[in-house]
């Protein structure tokens, strides 16, 4: 309440006084704030300059040389740390780039990948070519026949089987490991100049086997890990009673390779079973297992970059055919015995034939000789004479027929003819002979329904007078007496071709 009163006591000079006060305040403020304002102005100017410099383009322009130098220096000083730092970023960047621009990445790395793949394929093709060439250079062997049969049984061609066999196969390492403790008993590494920690590998391999068996085998002792594959290499594991064998191989294993491992392990058990059972880590108690192990590696199964193993048993050159397996050897022996038996049978057949031939020929030749000597006396044979005598032929229709007329005669002609010979068989007996290679009916006429006169035994020589269709007109010497008749031509072997004039063609089959 006091202040309003004091205010009311100065009503005459309120404006001038307040103006003075205001001016005084302004002057005072100007004095106090001037320096601050100047500083603020300076700061604002500096800020504007900085803002101008922080523009992305100009900032990059300024930082580029600095950053480049910094990165270069860091890479030079500590490349490992730098790689470790940017590795994840690089990996992620590559993943993003592949995701966003797959084709671009493909185009970028295609030259590198293409050259790499091309080189790998070239090496593989060269190796395959070398193996095939080595096989082709080998001479023929009995095993080739077996392999051909084997290929056929498998439904593939021998060439495919040969190509399959020519695929590179090499044993990189062999580990013989004590089954219970996992201690390494022997190790062979033809594929590498230096191998370290093979005993640790043996232990870990045993641990892995135990782990797999405990985890997946459900405690069944008969189920064991027998193969591990990683990339192009595989570990073939052959278990035994006290030891197991692990073979690190590359390529396609040859046929019988596992059987070879199994046999080897079994043989080892047979020979050194008690030693292996009682093994406690003392190498002095063991035989020379590495030499035994070397027996498993054949020259063709050596790695191509490897030096020859220190074995005395490897004398063959690389690429030479592999020794035969037991089954192959057995098959060869059986095949040889079969071939020998067949050869003996052939010899016996030839001998038998040669032995019997003089008997057959002696009879035939005698007959033939007799034939020639009796030819003059045969001429007046009544049969031949009758055939040439028209008067003896009661059938007038047959009389005018010339003797060599190829006119087919009806079968009724023979049945109605009183003569056993058809009129067309008029030629005189000829010296043409044949031999029966079967027992043949001698019939009175060239007809299957005709009367059977006799049976000409197999191997008997006959005189062929003429031919009519599938029938031969023959004279057969039956123990000194000649029988004349017709026999089926298919059972005779003609020693001399029958002249065509003695053949009567037949229109009727």
């Amino acid at each position, binding site marked *: 309440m006091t202040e309003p009163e004091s205010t009311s006591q100065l009503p005459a000079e309120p404006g001038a006084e307040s103006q003075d006060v205001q001016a005084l305040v302004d002057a005072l403020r100007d004095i106090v704030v001037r320096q601050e304002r100047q500083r603020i102005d300076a700061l604002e100017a500096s800020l504007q300059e900085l803002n101008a410099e922080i523009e992305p383009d100009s900032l990059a322009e300024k930082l580029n040389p600095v950053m480049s130098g910094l990165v270069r220096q860091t890479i030079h000083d500590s490349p490992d740390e730098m790689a470790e730092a940017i590795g994840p970023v690089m990996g992620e960047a590559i993943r993003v780039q592949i995701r966003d621009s797959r084709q671009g990445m493909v185009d970028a790395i295609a030259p590198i990948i293409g050259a790499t793949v091309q080189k790998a394929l070239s090496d593989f093709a060269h190796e395959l070519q070398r193996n095939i060439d080595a096989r082709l250079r080998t001479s023929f062997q009995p095993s080739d026949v077996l392999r051909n049969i084997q290929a056929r049984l498998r439904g593939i061609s021998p060439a495919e089987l040969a190509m399959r066999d020519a695929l590179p196969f090499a044993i990189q390492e062999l580990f013989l490991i004590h089954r219970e403790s*996992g*201690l390494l008993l022997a190790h062979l590494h033809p594929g590498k100049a230096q191998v370290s920690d093979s005993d640790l590998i043996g232990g*870990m391999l045993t641990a892995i086997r135990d782990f797999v068996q405990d985890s997946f085998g459900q405690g069944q002792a008969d189920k064991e890990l027998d193969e591990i594959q990683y990339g192009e290499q595989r570990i073939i594991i052959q278990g035994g009673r006290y030891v197991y064998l692990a073979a690190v191989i590359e390529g396609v294993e040859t046929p019988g390779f596992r059987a070879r491992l199994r046999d080897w392990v079994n043989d080892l058990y047979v020979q050194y079973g008690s030693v292996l059972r009682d093994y406690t*880590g003392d190498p002095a108690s063991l035989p020379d297992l590495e030499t035994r192990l070397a027996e498993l590696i054949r020259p063709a199964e050596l790695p191509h970059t490897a030096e020859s193993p220190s074995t005395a048993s490897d004398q063959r050159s690389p690429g030479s055919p592999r020794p035969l397996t037991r089954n192959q050897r057995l098959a060869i022996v059986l095949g040889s015995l079969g071939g020998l038996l067949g050869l003996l049978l052939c010899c016996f057949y030839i001998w038998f034939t040669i032995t019997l031939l003089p008997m057959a020929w002696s009879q035939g030749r005698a007959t033939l000789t007799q034939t020639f000597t009796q030819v003059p006396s045969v001429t007046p044979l009544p049969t031949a004479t009758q055939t040439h005598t028209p008067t003896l032929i009661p059938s007038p229709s047959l009389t005018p027929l010339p003797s060599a007329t190829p006119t087919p005669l009806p079968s009724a002609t023979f049945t109605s003819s009183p003569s056993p010979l058809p009129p067309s068989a008029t030629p005189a007996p000829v010296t043409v002979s044949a031999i029966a290679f079967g027992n043949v009916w001698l019939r009175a006429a060239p007809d299957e329904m005709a009367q059977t006169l006799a049976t000409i035994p197999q191997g008997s020589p006959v005189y062929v007078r003429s031919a009519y269709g599938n029938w031969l007109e023959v004279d057969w010497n039956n123990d000194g007496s000649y029988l004349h008749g017709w026999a089926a031509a298919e059972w005779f072997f003609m020693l001399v071709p029958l002249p065509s004039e003695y053949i009567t063609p037949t229109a009727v089959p």
Partner: protein
Amino acid sequence: MPVMQKKICLLGDFAVGKTSLVRRFVEGRFDDRYLSTIGVKVSRFSLERPAGDLNLIVWDLAGSDEYGAQASYLRGAAGALIVCDLIRRETLASMQEYAARMRQVNPDAALVFLGNKVDLVLDRAVEDAEMQSVCSALNGPYLLCSAKTGERVSDGFLMLVEALGLVP
């Protein structure tokens, strides 16, 4: 000269320091991740002796029931180092179980007991007398060591070599 080999196992509860114990003194090529993968990692402790070199193939078994109980890993072991943590009292009791498992699989196995982390004096929960009592009951020598400082770790391996009947 041929090298004698012995398989030994390293047993103990999880985090008692088994892997740390052997890390300094063994040679190996396998990563510790194998422990968590298949429950075992194999290393080698080599010892040169006048009678001939000796390789202890050390099977470091994961300290959990999931893996450590696998009897197959214990088969063929000539001996074992059984480790307890001196600042965790319960690991002392577990030593008895591991010793029983080991002797069940390998009755003639030599056992050596190690008390690890002896350097943590203030946190120690197992006294010497307790350790001696338990190990005497299990019929095996014991040793206090520190994987952190390396104190007497190699002595533990040498003690096991001696227990195996081999002159170090």
